[in-house]
């Protein structure tokens, strides 16, 4: 029915199957939309957040997807600025995944702030000392860059591209894409760093506070490194998931292994600094304010197992796996390492968001446990459904994978 819209020379499932698949996604999306409407109408009192936990599931989700979406800017940097040609096989997907992650994060933020109608105050009354101001500026500017990077892919749609003007426009946008890749890399580096800086400057929160390098706390750099150490392999996981779902080969393994090598290298650098940072924090900063390492952990939900899982199982181990060629070149091993790395960065964002404020700074206060309620889950699932929907449409109608034809013939 819609086969004329498919990219040149590829097969797609029947229109009926496509409709069923889309309906399932829309089901989840509608459930989340219902939750979102309740939040906007009744206020965020409807969530599991409270005066103790001003930040919760939404901010954790936001930070995690933004870190995982880092494949876009980092791969763009390597492809367009450092001219690593091999990456053109996956660059379209990284842009789409990045776009989904960033636009999804912005949708969640709209729900998360108590006065969504005043969101523009961030530009109108900016506090240049606030890391969050930097986040607001960078996230919107970079989201715009991602849209600009996404547009040529849309213009290359088979029917659209037959129009000479659109064809020429798409071509010219490609020619100038290095400029946007550079701009995106700059903006996103600062954005990822500012998210880390947001926590590092919390002088009243010993779990997150870090001494600084120049005007930035260490967490600024740790967040950048952790994002570029996991973003590329998250894109590989998305590509592989799409391959399993469609039964087609979409990206050659050589490209995936290269992405693994890049992520592994960055993850190794990150782990080196993260371990030093954790050691300095535990033995230097904490005693200086009368606290111990043990004071920072409590029970199961805030236990030390989170730290060890993040650093060893989901940090050091996947880093070793990805930088070792013999392991990296075995698909199952690469995918396991990629999954571990993505879990690790998500744990990192969780503890910096929730554990940081759960830890009772007042000595006579007690630990509090935070549990999101269905409203927060549903609205977060809405964003995941939104991502599935965008990927579904892009895969069906746009030339997302340049290798698809040759790999499946």
């Amino acid at each position, binding site marked *: 029915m819609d086969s004329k819209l498919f990219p040149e020379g590829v097969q797609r499932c029947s229109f009926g199957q496509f409709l069923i698949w889309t309906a399932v996604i829309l089901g989840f999306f509608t459930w989340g939309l219902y939750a979102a409407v*309740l939040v906007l*109408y*009744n*206020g*965020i*009192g*409807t969530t599991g*957040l*409270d*005066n*103790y936990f*001003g*930040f919760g599931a939404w901010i954790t989700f936001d930070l995690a997807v933004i870190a995982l979406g880092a494949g876009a800017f980092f791969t763009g940097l390597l492809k367009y600025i450092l001219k690593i040609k091999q990456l053109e096989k996956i660059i379209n997907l990284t842009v789409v995944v990045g776009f989904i992650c960033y636009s999804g994060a912005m949708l969640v933020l709209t729900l*998360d*702030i*108590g*006065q969504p109608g*005043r*969101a523009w*105050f*961030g530009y*109108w*009354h*900016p*506090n240049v*000392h*606030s*890391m*969050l*101001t930097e*986040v*607001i500026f960078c996230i919107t500017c970079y989201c715009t860059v991602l849209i600009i990077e996404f547009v040529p892919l849309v213009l290359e749609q088979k029917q659209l591209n037959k129009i000479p003007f659109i064809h020429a426009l798409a071509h010219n946008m490609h020619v100038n894409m290095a400029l946007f890749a550079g701009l995106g890399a700059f903006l996103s580096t600062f954005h990822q760093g500012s998210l880390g800086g*947001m926590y590092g*400057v*919390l*002088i*009243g*929160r*010993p779990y997150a506070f870090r001494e600084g390098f120049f005007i930035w706390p260490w967490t600024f750099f740790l967040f950048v490194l952790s994002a570029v150490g996991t973003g590329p392999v998250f894109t590989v996981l998305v590509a592989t998931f799409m391959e399993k779902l469609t039964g087609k080969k979409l990206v050659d393994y050589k490209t995936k292994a290269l992405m693994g090598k890049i992520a592994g290298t960055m993850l190794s650098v990150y782990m080196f600094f993260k371990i030093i940072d954790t050691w300095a924090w535990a033995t230097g900063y904490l*005693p*200086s*304010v*009368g*606290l*111990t390492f*043990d*004071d920072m952990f*409590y029970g199961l939900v805030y236990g030390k197992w989170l730290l060890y899982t993040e650093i060893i199982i989901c940090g050091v181990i996947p880093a070793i796996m990805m930088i070792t060629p013999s392991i990296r070149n075995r698909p199952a091993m690469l995918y396991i390492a990629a999954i571990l790395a993505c879990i690790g960065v998500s744990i990192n964002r969780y503890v910096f968001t929730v554990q*940081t*404020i759960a830890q*009772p*700074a*007042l*000595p*006579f*206060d*007690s*630990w*509090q446990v935070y549990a999101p309620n269905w*409203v927060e889950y549903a609205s977060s699932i809405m964003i995941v459904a939104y991502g599935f929907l965008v990927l579904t449409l892009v895969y069906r109608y746009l030339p997302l994978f340049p290798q698809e034809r040759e790999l499946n013939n």
Partner: protein
Amino acid sequence: MQIKEFKIKWGMVIDIDKCTGCGACMVGCQVENNIAPMTKNDPYNYVQALTKDRDEASNKLKTLTWMNVYELSNGQAFPDHETAYLPRPCMQCGNPACVPVCPVIATDKNEEGGIVSQIYPRCIGCRYCMAACPYHARYFNWWDPLWPEGMDKGLSPSVSVRPRGVVEKCNFCHSRYLDAKNEARQNDEDPMNLADGAYNTACAEICPTKAITFGDLNNPEHAVHDLAKGPNAFRLLEKLGLAPQVYYTSEREWVRKQGDNYNADGGGHGAPSNSHG
């Protein structure tokens, strides 16, 4: 570390040994500052039925209590057990954690006696200041404010009512400061050199045991000036360097120790007996 200093520094000294934990300061604060009571049902919102009920006052983590009273315990078994009560307003820190993080300058520490202000019409409700404040002195308006019928007639015309979705906090009853300055001007006195007691907060005024003393910490003629320098005076979380303008005093050593981060032996953290007031 950069501590903001101004000519006038309004501050409080709270004598924990005098505090009985009666909660009058909390009530005084609530009435003075038009803080809406927590009501479970909103008769004007029909969509509320589709989601959870509004929180009632029993949910201490969603109430608005600019002044909160904590119960402290020395952790000993009977007959050596002792308790103390620690009222906690906003600390009006000299080096506030909340001010530099706000993305829209909705909060500021300024010449108004070093009081950390909050501009409600500018707040976007991101709650970054709440995450930054270790004293939990900032409160979010989770629900639209709602007063039971008739109670709205008792609202103070001097204090703005905050809408849903903004962060609010204690401001040392700032409207009383404006009133005191105006009165000084009318009496041909210097509004920048108010006499001790000319400006007082609701919590200090209502306290039946006079545990709370309020005044200018920089003015030697004000009682708080000397009280804050007393041998038993201390500030909460001194080691973190936020430099609060609220001082506490207690002759009991275990109370003073709990005020700062002297918990390297694990004392205090996670102790279930200590709870929100």
